[in-house]
């Protein structure tokens, strides 16, 4: 059973003359422990795909299966619970609550799930130190650099032991060095913690950290490249591509 399975997924915004097809019958299967980057020119539908997989938006047509269950048919309540327990979100603008400190921000999903505050704090601190933020727990977001804020956000995404991490342009608001840090943190989440990461980015250098790149154009998948195979395997795939010419 694939972690994420997307079948004939379509999303249409508006109607009539203002109708925009953001996704057009997309099929994608993502296995557990894969680090997938979604790339493509702006307006290609990459964010829409992420939103639909994350259950933040409803598809016009088709289905999204998370660990075998179809989320497009779930009620808002079930979906909310699924997001809380199985998914972690990382946003371009970090989206930390400005009035909470790093530990509290990190612990949010656990508190939302009714975990005891002490346990939530302990877990949050653990994740912060894993993400090299020891001693920053009491800092509020405005006292942290962009890269640090994003690492708090990653800690927050990881704290509830989710199956899937969804990241929307996680480095879009960072300089290239902090961007590299964030990308390698995500890499570690996949390598060390065997999580599935789906990341939307337009930065090739960040995408290169992934195991697989899905290219979207005009709402369709135009290419799907595995990056991490052995040289021989890669060469074989490349050869197949060449032959399909």
């Amino acid at each position, binding site marked *: 059973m694939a972690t994420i399975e997307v079948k004939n997924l379509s999303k249409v915004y508006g109607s009539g003359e203002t109708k925009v097809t953001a996704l057009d019958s997309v099929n994608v299967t993502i296995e557990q422990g894969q680090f997938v980057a979604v790339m493509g*020119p702006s307006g290609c539908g990459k964010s829409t795909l992420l939103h639909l997989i994350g259950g933040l938006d409803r598809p016009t047509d088709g289905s999204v299966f998370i660990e075998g269950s179809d989320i497009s048919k779930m009620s808002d309540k079930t979906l909310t619970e699924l997001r809380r327990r199985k998914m972690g979100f990382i946003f371009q603008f970090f989206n930390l609550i400005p009035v909470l400190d790093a530990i509290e921000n990190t612990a949010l999903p656990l508190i939302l799930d009714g975990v005891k505050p002490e346990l939530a704090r302990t877990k949050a601190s653990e994740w912060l130190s894993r993400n090299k933020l020891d001693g920053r727990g009491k800092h509020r977001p405005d006292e942290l650099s962009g890269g640090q804020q994003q690492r708090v956000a990653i800690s927050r995404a990881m704290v509830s032991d989710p199956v899937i991490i969804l990241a929307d342009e996680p480095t879009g608001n960072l300089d290239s060095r902090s961007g590299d840090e964030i990308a*390698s943190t995500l*890499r570690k989440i996949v390598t060390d913690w065997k999580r599935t990461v789906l990341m939307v980015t337009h930065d*090739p*250098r960040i*995408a*290169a*950290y*992934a195991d697989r*790149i899905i*290219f979207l154009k005009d709402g369709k998948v*135009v*290419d799907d*490249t595995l*990056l*991490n195979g052995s040289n021989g395997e*890669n060469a074989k*795939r*490349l050869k197949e*591509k*060449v032959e*399909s*010419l």
Partner: protein
Amino acid sequence: MSVRHSLLGLLAQKPRYGYELCAGFTALVGGKENWDVKPAQIYTTLARMVESGLVIFNNLNGQQSKGEYTITPKGHYELMDWFRSSDIEEPHQDPFYLKLMLSLELDEVDASRLIVIQRAALYQELHRITEQRQALDPHNQLAQMMLMDKSAMHLEADLRWLDMIESRLDEVQRQPSPKPAMRPRGRPPSQSA
């Protein structure tokens, strides 16, 4: 030409044996995987430099194969001259460009597929470089990391260039393809290598 000057540079520090120079060069570029220079090539280069009087070979114990190389003042002058020059790579001789231009002319090849394949390959390379770079320790291998960065950035530039081509491929196709200027008479223009 850089191998030659690197060897001169290493010798400017102190006289060295041949195998010492082989190891020194590999260390300089951060490993065989970055720049795999065979010892034979090193020795050939050294022999040429001895011929040109840039270095001197001192036999040891009369053995022909074993001995120390020392830089000459001429060699030192040549090295300094190299330092004074700047290094600009020749970016226009791009094999993929040729492939792409030709594919636009030939009906049997799809230019956009070409881009897809090239991109996949570039990404695989970038991924490999990124992994390598990740494996380095920033506390004592920073120089090598910088070299990786250079490669990564070049690959990134190539990828961006591909994106740009892809987005404007239609426009390129609509324009008349570059044709050689037909000259009725005279020799073809000389070409420099």
